[in-house]
């Protein structure tokens, strides 16, 4: 056999091996400088190689990126993060119980979505991925609504048309989640271009995983954003894994994902994605830059997908079980909590009370949600509604098909009644 030369990227450890995150260079908190919001991209390239970090291992907020939020703001943030996690856990359990067909947790990544939602204005438009449910939570979408979507029930915002987690919220300015990876990235740029064309002050933000950054949409988003200097924040959530493939397979072995930015003339900022304060601060910086006509920013969030990819996945097949424990950037909730405690603004007792309260809230919400129906029980959506919204007005061929289904259902009902009658 010839000696082959195709390089194959490997994760640092596979099942049975010891987790190893030595490939990550983690600078101390507080070290990174905070450049002027209008600094030219080429002058701030180190933002893409280092890592913006604010919270140190003692819960102290350090350095120029400290956003100096009030304790109340921090407590609100903590609450959203904990609620997101409780929500995820409940839904996963409900999937295991067969109540919903599918679920995807964001465990370990809650800081990204929650901090960014809070750092942006409500009028800014968010183009989410399937692992940024924290955006909905932080913007105040009721959990009942999210649960109803997962249940495809009578209150499902998608009217039963999408798998669980494919939420949207028009009034809350959160776009629809697509099952197709990355498509929302250049759409966000188009939205931002429209805002600029209209002379409006809103910006768009979008999220994809590091794995999805290999898709064409990443390149289109970057190119259009750079060319038109669109007011948009493009986030790559690098949680180290894309289902079973390590971030090296997506191209993260030699360079950071933030470093893709400068090649397009877009600043690339790499941030400790488990550091709520750092994510918040970097997002504010990018938002101010965009609103000051500084154009787009690419943000790479370094984080870790603590849970399975989805309820269909078993990560024990491809990575060490202990990786999450070994993850050097910790748990974003624990870290924010530690910060609040260090500030004297929080305690283990208050945390326990919060957890309990939110757990109760989630239970309440679930009870309410299932009262609107589940996939198998209770009030259900009218199947005939499946023909609506293909077009703004239903064209004749769909009317005919709807009529056909209606008749079929009638016949089946009659037949069932008939056989019931016979059975009686």
């Amino acid at each position, binding site marked *: 056999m010839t000696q082959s030369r195709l390089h194959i990227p490997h994760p640092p450890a596979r099942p049975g091996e010891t987790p190893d995150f030595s490939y990550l260079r983690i600078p101390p908190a507080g070290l990174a400088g905070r450049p002027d919001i209008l600094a030219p991209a080429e002058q701030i390239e180190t933002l893409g190689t280092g890592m913006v970090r604010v919270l140190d291992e003692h819960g102290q907020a350090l350095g120029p990126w400290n956003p100096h939020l009030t304790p109340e703001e921090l407590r609100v943030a903590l609450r959203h993060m904990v609620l997101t996690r409780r929500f995820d856990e409940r839904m996963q359990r409900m999937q295991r119980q067969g109540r919903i067909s599918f679920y995807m947790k964001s465990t370990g990544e809650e800081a990204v979505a929650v901090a960014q939602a809070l750092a942006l204005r409500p009028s800014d438009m968010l183009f989410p991925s399937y692992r940024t449910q924290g955006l909905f939570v932080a913007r105040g979408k009721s959990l009942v609504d999210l649960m109803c979507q997962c249940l495809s029930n009578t209150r499902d915002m998608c009217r039963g048309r999408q798998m669980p987690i494919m939420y949207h919220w028009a009034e809350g300015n959160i776009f629809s989640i697509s099952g197709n990876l990355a498509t929302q990235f250049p759409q966000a740029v188009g939205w931002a271009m*429209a805002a600029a064309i209209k002379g409006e002050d809103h910006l768009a933000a979008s999220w994809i995983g590091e794995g999805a950054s290999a898709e064409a949409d990443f390149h289109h988003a970057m190119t259009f954003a750079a060319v038109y200097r669109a007011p948009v924040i493009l986030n790559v959530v690098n949680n180290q894994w894309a289902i079973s493939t390590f971030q090296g397979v997506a191209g993260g072995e030699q360079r950071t994902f933030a470093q893709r930015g400068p090649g397009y003339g877009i600043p690339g900022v790499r941030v400790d994605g488990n550091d709520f304060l750092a994510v918040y601060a970097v997002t504010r910086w990018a938002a101010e830059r965009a609103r000051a006509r500084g154009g787009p920013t690419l943000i790479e969030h370094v984080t870790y997908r603590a849970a399975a990819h989805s309820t269909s996945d078993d990560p024990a097949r491809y990575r060490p079980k202990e990786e999450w424990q070994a993850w050097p950037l910790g748990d974003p909730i624990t870290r924010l909590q530690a910060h609040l405690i260090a500030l004297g603004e929080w305690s283990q007792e208050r945390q326990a009370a919060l957890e309990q309260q939110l757990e109760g809230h989630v239970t309440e919400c679930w009870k309410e949600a299932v009262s609107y129906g589940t996939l198998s029980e209770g009030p259900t959506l009218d199947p005939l509604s499946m023909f609506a919204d293909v077009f703004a007005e239903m064209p004749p061929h769909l009317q005919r098909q709807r009529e056909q289904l209606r008749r079929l259902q009638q016949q089946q009902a009659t037949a069932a009644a008939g056989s019931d009658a016979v059975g009686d």
Partner: protein
Amino acid sequence: MAQMNMVQAINSALDVMLGRDPRVVVFGEDVGYFGGVFRCTDGLQRKYGEQRVLDTPIAEGGIVAAAIGMGVNGLRPVAEIQFADYIYPAFDQIVSELARLRYRTAGDFSAPVTIRAPCGGGIRGGQTHSQSPEGIFTHVCGLKVVMPSNPRDAKGLLISAIEGEDPVLFFEPKRIYNGPFDGDPHKPAVPWSSDPRGEVPEGHYAIPLGKAEIVRPGSAATVITYGTMVHVAEAAVRLAGIDAEIIDVRTLVPLDVDTLCTSVCKTGRCVIVHEATRFSGFGAELSATVQEQCFWHLEAPIARVTGWDTPYPHAFEWEYFPGPARIAAALRAVTERDA
């Protein structure tokens, strides 16, 4: 009424809509300063400014994605794909996103995007400047698909497309941009100014999507076609000397089944004609539908006259093109069969 060729009619539709509706934006490769490689957007950037008529990077997927985002943000984007042959890089954004956005959000989000693309052969463009991919898009739920056959329809249909709430794929048969074409490349070119369908109102008017047009009434057979082939079919009917009814489908989705099937039920014979390749082309759907609805009236098999099932070959354009002779032969076959 003004005389316009199809390029001018399309330009006029865009002009009218840019003028009437500040939400309309027009963009694509070379459409801005230059006015488009076929000149369909000529003068529009000068008139409406660079914020509303703009050049894009060469990335069809990016163009459609940006159009979707703009549509969601309240604009009415009209994107040009320079040749229909280059629409495939945008396929995922069109099929997975644009077509399904309203559905998947139960109407909460939608993007009223119009995508214009010159299509079809007859210009010695070879396999990458001659394709007719409309059939593919007719299989995608949520898209309207239009192909006009003359300047008057082009303008009225394009205005409807832009004004409508649904995404529309608007295919422009480039062979008839400058004049009708009867399928004989050796005849001198005929300009639109010598055809009544080249008379186009200057201002705003709309031709509703979803309505076919009987271009030539007749009783011996029905020819169902669209785009360039409408004119070729007219020539074929003259050539065959058969009193066929010719129907210009105009809107492929939603399809005006009633007009087509009323005609076929009347004539009992049907020839379907398109430039696109035959296998699984739009003609298959037309045939299947007509067969379902008119079965008891059919007196001969429905015939399809189409491009052959090969890529569009540069040197054999006229052997490939489903010209009047082939259509006439099919007309004879469907009308003689029962003799």
